[in-house]
């Protein structure tokens, strides 16, 4: 079988390690926090805004290599992708679920204090 070359180059991996390691909350999304381009991304932005935490967003629509590479990096096929304290937390459904049961707030409070 023919396999496509990996989009996750060593350079991209090290850039992602740095971005995710140096921000407590990072959201890779379609669009920006002010102009989300997809309902799922918008949902997570609204949740984070309502919890009043600072967060970085990165628009995956701007860069095809980034979009493809991230899917490999996270082993997660869709966007948005939320990272908290250097760890992949989940996509939209998981974030909504954790928001409803209070786990997200707890985790973010802990992250802000650390």
């Amino acid at each position, binding site marked *: 079988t023919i396999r496509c070359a990996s989009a996750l180059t060593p350079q991209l991996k090290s850039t992602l390690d740095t971005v995710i390691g140096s921000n407590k909350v990072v959201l890779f999304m379609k669009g920006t926090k002010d102009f989300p381009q997809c309902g*799922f991304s918008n949902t997570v932005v609204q949740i984070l805004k309502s919890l009043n935490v600072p967060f970085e967003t990165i628009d995956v629509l701007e860069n095809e290599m980034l979009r493809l590479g991230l899917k490999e990096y996270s082993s997660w*096929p*869709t966007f948005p992708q939320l990272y908290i304290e250097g760890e992949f937390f989940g996509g939209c459904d998981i974030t909504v679920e954790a928001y409803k049961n209070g786990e997200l707030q707890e985790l973010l409070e802990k992250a802000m204090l650390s």
Partner: protein
Amino acid sequence: MGVTKENVEATLKAKLNPSHLEVVDTSGGCGASFVVEIVSEQFEGKRLLERHRMVNAALEEELKEIHALSIKKTVTPEQWKQQQEANQSNAAA
């Protein structure tokens, strides 16, 4: 030819052996957007992130063509029973 609801159901049945499965096509028929609710013993002892990863892994091929997949519920048969009973007692109250 896109991915159909039947494709998604057949794959999830084969890979996760669910005791209950509901796949809803939310695309208005173009076959590219689904909501999934799945009950499987294979979720036993797994966190929510791992459960979602199992569903994503099962649908690896389909996801190349699916625009949006919303995993609404991934529960064990035991959790499912408890939720059904809670719903019934709420309805009765």
